[in-house]
């Protein structure tokens, strides 16, 4: 954090990027990790800074600075992973971690702390520079506390001014810089510096005995100045307040099966849940996904093309290298209704005899990489949004998404904080708190119309898998699903 004060304290300074392993140390650690065999050994080093600011009750209430420093040592043998992590990056500790990770490659039943550690002189490292530069790279956390306070206050005040029914507002701003270095037994050394900003506003509206909450946010891998060019604070404050006010008038959703139209942008979460997860290659190699035997099969309406692209500049889900050091690739998952690809990390790619698509991601140094989505979207179709609405006599228009979940068996849900009824081709009454449930093969077949108005959701989304949360973005055009179970009230 930069300091704008006149009298900076002596200690106020950027914390030093704290890991510079000498090549000879890396060599010794990698050799130690591979002492019992394995096809890959890897050191993942992470240094992440978080800056958080919270405004509520009309004051800047809290500020927080956090540092995450750690290393993960991984050894892969066949399909097995040996893994050790630590917060101490001293050479002795890293060697100890390497010995722990190496245990996977022995018979595993006779671990010992003193095997021989040959140090092959043959391992030499090459520093790679990623070809992408998807986000600002140099001055990592450029925004001053004053600038952040100004943005948060602007958001806060905007939300309050929307209407006297707005009784409570809370605004938080999180700025992060994750720095990672990956060193592996193939001689790779590669680093990435990944900035992230997220501004979130919560607004509560009250009218009589009724209280409702609205949420909005945006951000991305972008610096604050650039992000704020489009009056971000005003837009987010306005959106949160508007949703809360709209919910004051909303009624419970109807219950039962009906046609559902996904609004462009946020509706992408349905594809993320219904399709994206089950095309992650770990579920394919383990045959737990219903798609494991469906490569090249037609599973969806031919209007459906689904893509995952980690290389969209400034998006939350983007990265210059994945967390295994692989250069990411835009990956087609479903093309005109046919399954054409999976999201691969190195382990799954090896088992499935393919190449990694650069989708090996981890929450942090303490987690093993998994094949994950990045920025996932349903590509545009041919219909005008109006045509899609017109085709529906009675249905649900889904616009504010809270999130979703899927099981490998293909059952998924996603939840809306609010939406609208569709009656005779028009949006009518607002409805609230709806859960939709379906099974993915059926919903893919039931996608009847795909609009031409592709949009991406606001840059606030995260995805959880096996306890690991990572930033993602979803997108879609207006989409009509013939029939979906809507969980409302009788």
């Amino acid at each position, binding site marked *: 954090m930069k300091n704008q*004060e006149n009298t900076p304290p*002596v*200690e*106020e*300074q950027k914390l030093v990027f*704290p890991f510079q392993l000498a090549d000879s140390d890396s060599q010794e650690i990698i050799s130690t990790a591979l002492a019992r065999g394995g096809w890959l050994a890897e050191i993942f080093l992470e240094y992440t800074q978080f800056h958080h600011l919270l405004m*509520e009750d009309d*004051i*800047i209430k*809290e*500020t*927080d*600075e*956090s*540092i995450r*420093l750690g290393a993960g040592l991984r050894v892969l043998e066949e*399909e*097995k992973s*040996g893994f*050790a992590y*630590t917060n101490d990056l*001293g050479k*002795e*500790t890293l060697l*100890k*971690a390497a010995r722990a990770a190496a245990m996977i490659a022995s018979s*595993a*039943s006779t671990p010992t*702390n003193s095997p021989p550690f040959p140090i092959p002189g043959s391992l030499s490292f090459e520093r790679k520079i990623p070809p992408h530069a998807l986000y600002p790279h140099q001055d990592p956390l450029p925004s001053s506390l*004053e600038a952040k306070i100004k943005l948060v206050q602007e958001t806060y005040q905007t939300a309050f001014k929307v209407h006297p029914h707005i009784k409570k507002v809370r605004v938080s701003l999180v700025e992060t810089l994750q720095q990672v270095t990956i060193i592996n037994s193939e001689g790779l050394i590669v680093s990435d510096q990944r900035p992230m900003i997220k501004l979130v506003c919560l607004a509560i509206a009250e009218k009589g005995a009724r*209280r409702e*909450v609205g949420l909005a946010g945006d951000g991305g891998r972008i610096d604050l100045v650039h992000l704020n060019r489009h009056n971000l604070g005003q837009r987010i404050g306005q959106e949160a307040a508007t949703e809360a006010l709209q919910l004051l008038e909303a009624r419970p959703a109807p*219950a*039962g*099966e009906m046609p559902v139209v996904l609004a462009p942008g946020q509706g992408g979460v349905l594809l993320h849940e219904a399709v994206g997860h089950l095309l992650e290659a770990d579920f394919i190699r*383990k*045959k*737990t996904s*219903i798609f*494991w035997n469906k490569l090249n099969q037609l599973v969806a309406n031919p209007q459906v093309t689904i893509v995952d692209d980690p290389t969209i500049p400034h998006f939350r889900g983007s990265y210059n290298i994945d967390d295994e050091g692989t250069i990411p690739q835009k990956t087609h998952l479903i093309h005109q209704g046919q399954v054409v690809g999976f999201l691969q990390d190195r382990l799954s790619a090896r088992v499935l005899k393919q190449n990694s698509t650069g989708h090996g991601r981890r929450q942090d140094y303490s987690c*093993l990489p998994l094949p994950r989505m990045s920025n996932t979207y349903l590509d545009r179709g041919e219909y005008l949004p109006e045509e899609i609405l017109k085709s529906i006599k009675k249905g649900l228009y889904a616009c504010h998404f809270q*999130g*979703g*979940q899927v*099981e*490998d*068996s*293909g*059952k998924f*849900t*996603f939840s809306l904080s609010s939406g609208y009824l569709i009656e005779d081709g028009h949006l009518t009454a607002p409805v609230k708190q*709806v*859960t939709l*449930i379906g099974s993915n*093969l059926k919903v893919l077949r039931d996608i009847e119309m795909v609009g031409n108005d592709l949009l991406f959701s606001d840059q606030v989304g995260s995805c959880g898998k096996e306890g690991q949360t990572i930033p993602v973005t979803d997108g879609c055009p207006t989409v009509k699903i013939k029939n979906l*179970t*809507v*969980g409302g*009230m*009788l």
Partner: protein
Amino acid sequence: MKTSPAKTTFTQHEILQLAADLVSFAQVRGADEVEVAISQGEEFNVDIRHQEIENLTQAQTWGASVRLFKDNKIASASSSDLRPETMQNLIANALQRLELTQEDPWNGLPEATFSFFSPEKLELYDPQIKEIPIEKKIELARQTEKIALSDKRITNSHGASFSCAELFHALANSQGFVGSYQETSFSLAVGLQAGETDNRAEDYWGHSSRVFERLEKPEEIARRAVARTVRLLNPRKISTQQVPIVFEPEMTSWLLGFLFSCVSGTAIYQQTSFLVGKLGKKIAGSNIEVVDDGLMPGKLGSRPFDQEGVPCQRTQVINQGRLDSYLLDTYSARRLKLKSTGNAGGGGVRPNNFYLLPGSKPPDKFISQLPQGFLLVRTIGHGLNPVTGEISRGAFGLWIEKGEIAFPVAEVTISGNLQDVLHQVVFIGQDLEFRSPICGPTIGVEGLTVAGN
């Protein structure tokens, strides 16, 4: 930590010393009040899939968090880099940030406390953790999966896992509080699939314990995981209706988790709970008794003192349907002119052992009397709104017809409102087990909508 061969761990004494040093450093630099928490631990995990080791993980971790107060302002910091210069920089930066933030009269450390429940008597630590051979840990997971896979109805496995961890927590503040305790945890679990590719059912079962000897055996975990998975095979959809819903204990726990987020003092002062202004009022049927208790020996949610050094206690939250207490940390308590209940967690209120008191009858008694009903076994998705109490989730369960389980049900949702649900609990079972920090027995609830065809 004595048995660890590496030089790079701290002794307990060193951790307490570091915490005290950082408190002094911040005071010298101008903080009115300071609190420093430091934890250090070791973790182990093994995942077995199709009888092979899939992942073997060992970790050595530490981390510190600091809260500083000056002129009724607060700034905080945390780090997993414990080098003195890093911690000192973080403290200096926090003091700097305080200049630009605003006063909040409720800020500050809790009143000084110098006594808390003996960590030893809480049975949080099992010294056996240092002696279990790695082969035995691997074998427990392998056995669990092996037994499960021996059932012909099981067609695939998500794998079985054994994990254990030991942690040392130290807390010091400028009021003179110094406290520390050790804890251990052990867990064993397996996830399974039954049925063929396009028509699969899946579920899992597991157990966690602070004491190794009390961890459920592989036979028991595997048996329940198999039974839970195969009972969901070949589900049907049901028509949309209101029907009595039987919550299995895990589902009662889920519902209580939602209740917890609504009685949390943070949600109350932030006005993000439907229970704002309801203290002392009837919010549930007279059969509802809910307690938070941090002092139950050996339980997963127990601890001698909370994250702020406030001694943990037993708090009756709901008494015969009346809301007797919110759950509070020091800040939310001051905001609400109440007293902390010892529920401070890192950055908010957290439960200790938060549970619904059991009734006296077995669940079978209730189920056998239902002409029709829906036995809820799992929910997925989001759809809980503490501001309004609204519940809306995807659901899996079993249809009950004439008092007996008739067939599994999938692809339905349940919806209702917690405000109503609390008055519509018509049965509370005797089967309370403390399997997680938030828990409850089987309950029967009327008035929820199940949406299907």
